[in-house]
């Protein structure tokens, strides 16, 4: 896989993961182009399309589009299920995930993705194992938590 993008129906990018080196300018260009192309497609259309020399696999979940670019010899259907497994992971972690969860906890969305996919390839496909790794980290964090100031508690710093 070359990259994965999550964007909303309004075309707002919610998550971007690039597995090939590209300049920021190029990334922005690709994002703009793909968001436009995918949003223009009708609901019943097929989930795959040819784009440049890559294949795009996308699926919409509620208000979010998940969109992956894979190479020519890669398998479209299994990529579709990679998307689904990622959605399941998010759902399980956040408990019925919605777009807002991904906005406010974007760093978690990245961490979960890194446990699941690395360098564009599936690293661990077991839902249990991925969530175990993430929850372990959460646990580590709670232990480390130190008391914070009152100002911090109300979000003023």
């Amino acid at each position, binding site marked *: 896989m070359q990259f994965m993008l999550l964007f909303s129906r309004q075309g707002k*990018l919610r998550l971007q993961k690039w*597995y090939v*080196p*590209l*300049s920021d*300018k*190029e990334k*922005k260009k690709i994002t703009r182009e793909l968001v436009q192309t995918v949003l223009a497609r009708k609901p*019943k*259309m*097929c*989930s*795959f399309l*040819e784009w*440049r020399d890559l294949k795009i696999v996308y699926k919409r979940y509620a208000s979010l589009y998940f969109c992956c670019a894979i190479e020519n*010899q890669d*398998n*479209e*259907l*299994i990529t*579709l*299920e990679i998307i*689904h497994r990622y959605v399941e992971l998010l759902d399980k*972690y*956040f*408990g*019925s995930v*919605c777009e*807002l*969860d991904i*906005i*406010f906890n*974007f*760093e978690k969305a*990245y*961490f979960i993705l*890194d446990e699941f996919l*690395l*360098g*564009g*390839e*599936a*690293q*661990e*496909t*077991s839902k249990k*194992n991925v969530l175990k*790794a993430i929850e372990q*980290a*959460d646990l*580590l*964090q*709670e232990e*480390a*938590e130190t008391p914070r100031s009152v100002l*911090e*508690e*109300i*979000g*003023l710093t």
Partner: protein
Amino acid sequence: MPAVSKGDGMRGLAVFISDIRNCKSKEAEIKRINKELANIRSKFKGDKALDGYSKKKYVCKLLFIFLLGHDIDFGHMEAVNLLSSNKYTEKQIGYLFISVLVNSNSELIRLINNAIKNDLASRNPTFMCLALHCIANVGSREMAEAFAGEIPRILVAGDTMDSVKQSAALCLLRLYKTSPDLVLMGEWTSRVVHLLNDQHMGVVTAAISLITCLSQKNPDEFKTCVSLAVSRLSRIVSSASTDLQDYTYYFVPAPWLSCKLLRLLQCYPPPEDGAVKGRLVECLETILNKAQEPPKSKKVQHSNAKNAILFEAISLIIHYDSEPNLLVRACNQLGQFLQHRETNLRYLALESMCTLASSEFSHEAVKTHIETVINALKTERDVSVRQRAADLLYAMCDRSNAKQIVAEMLSYLETADYSIREEMVLKVAILAEKYAVDYSWYVDTILNLIRIAGDYVSEEVWYRVIQIVINRDDVQGYAAKTVFEALQAPACHENMVKVGGYILGEFGNLIAGDPRSSPLIQFNLLHSKFHLCSVPTRALLLSAYIKFINLFPETKPTIQEVLRSDSQIRNSDVELQQRAVEYLKLSSIASTDVLATVLEEMPPFPERESSILAKLKKKKGPGAVSVSELEDGKREGGELNGGGERITDASAIAASNASTPSPSADLLGLRSAAPVGSAAPSAGSLLVDVFSEAGPVAPSSGVTDDNFLSSTPSSSSLGSEDAAPPLPESDELLNKFVCKNNGVLFENQLLQIGIKSEYRQNLGRMYLFYGNKTSVQFVSFTTALNVQTKPVEPLVEGGAQVQQVINIECLSDFIEAPLLNIKFRYGGALQNITLKLPVTINKFFQPTEMSSQDFFQRWKQLSLPQQEAQKIFKANNAMDTELLGLGTALLENVDPNPENFVCAGVIQTKAQQVGCLLRLEPNAQAQMYRLTLRSSKDTVSKRLCELLAQQF
């Protein structure tokens, strides 16, 4: 607010994100972000040392801002500090920031690598995984240099935790992809293969991606993986759906791993060992059988996972192309999918069948689905599915069904989406040619193509029909009759006029016996279209007319009258005028014999690959047209051309008019350069050839090896003895204009000189504006070029501006710019300024588009040391350079490294054309560029390199 705020819940971050979301406008958002950036900056700069938590929070905010699409230019150091924190979440945020905002600052890279090194050595698996994720996400060369040796050791060490092994495998894969030279094969490679046997499915899943990639590059070293993969696959395929616990996905056992195993096997030929092969065939049969079983779940995830494996298995069967039984079963399975209610499956079945169609074992089986595919072409609602159907029809076409398929594609073309029309036209043209049994069908098909989709019929297509008609005498009469009929339509496409003009000009005599298509009727029909056509078509028609004079002497007076008319012989287009004059003269002077020789029928074209096929290949890139198809094309093309390999040149129209690119030249693919004459601006008589060829080198130019600029002795105004030497800054001023054509060339307290210029091919025109900035008039105002110019007004009033026009023609390549000397008296004092006129060789660039393959092929051809000029230099400007104004074509997706710029262009001079290739490689870290130029002429490479090196 988030539904849950697991773990840390950095409140400050959540508040900030809410604020951003509440912003009503882009401006408000930017304002809020700037406020936050100022806040963070002050915190980072403050005297009070920040605790880890605050640092983490601010770094996270910066990351959020960056991901919104804003630039971040600080905070990297704080993120690097977080890497060495002992707290997991702080480290994690630090790594995330680094992964997303890779900064090539060398100082930081060293610090980052250090932190990674510590974490890798920490023996704490969670820390090790974070470090490995970071390497895999960044994947830079510096990281490869630092860790490509270490990671294989971690991967195969006996005591490494499973989760670390998984990360290490994919981390190594990423490094191997970016810097294969740095990942050295060694003792570890054999141990990596054995990870396929690992008990932990996650380890196998991760390792197999690495093994597949390594196998593609070093098949021999990894060939033991084949039997291991087969036994692993066999175990999965035969397992019950619950055996693999959490690796079962919607009742499908380990779908990801299964797909990857099948994919790995596609790197190798079928196993030689009979037992292994038997086991594999068994697996493939089981997979095909399972497709027929009733689904274990109605969920789409179940069928997707199951079918993902099925399609991968079919790919492997096609790859082996040796098991007729499996191939036919695969084809039948795909046939079922063609009518499936899931659009995705229909799409994939069409795509997969395309490759099956090229196998001799399954070609016939694929053909049985023709009606379904035609139906898909007509009824699918999604254009990308229709496209697949068209591809499949093309792939399954052979002599037995060509007429049906071509007819269907033609009728589809009438309503086809604009996006795929051009490709469809090419495909129809190729099929019609490849499978033509009788050529009247071929001619009908192509003329229909032009009628239905004339705008999408490229030159190659109509060139090709002419080629074939000329080479086959059995179709010439039919072709003449058919084009004659087609031209009767009140509105016909210009491409039809071209084909009609050419064919009637050659073979109109074959239908002249019929009184309904007598010579004069033919001529009048053609000429009725003349006024509606573009210049190139008119030129072609004029050639057809002169051919008519030869074919039918009785039309001579009529045609001569047409040629003699003002609209031809005085046509403002040079090409048309020249043809009219020459043809008129030819027809009146030459004897019948001479005329008959000069205007003889075109000789057959030599046998060659169809130019259309070449075009389709170019359009789709290599691989889109299989090699066998290409060979087919050649073979059939040969048959078609009827062995005509005679090349004669004397009789062609081209011979009578050297400056005319005749269609025949293009038909042969030797597209000649645009004729020089036609490029002249229309006001040709005004053109002052300022850089005349003769005459001594102007003394003031001061350069001896100047083969371009020479002054006409008559240009009197440059009293070389009293012209000032060029200003010291004149070179710098010149450099400012390399990439732009308009602007202020020079300015002091008295005088401002503005320039406007335009270039086309080897010609240019420059307007100089001399502005008097003072309130006092300049007297005795003269300007002189070391070549001839028209004088300017000698008086420049205060505050006024005078204008001077210079027409420029580039005769051959040159190095020194012309010198411009300006003298005038201002309040009695003589002012004497000499500047370099900003005319540089790159102004005569014509951009050239080319594919990556062409580019590098030409690049290699220009490999003599003197053809190359290279400079490595420090960036003068910010390195986000856009290569605008150079005049060359900036070629995208040509260089494998997307940071690099490559350009191609042709320098047009009167004497010759010099093709140039340019490659600019930025090194953002060192703030340096490497510029390489290659051209067929050493002086051009050198000069361009000097000029352009100043521009970045």
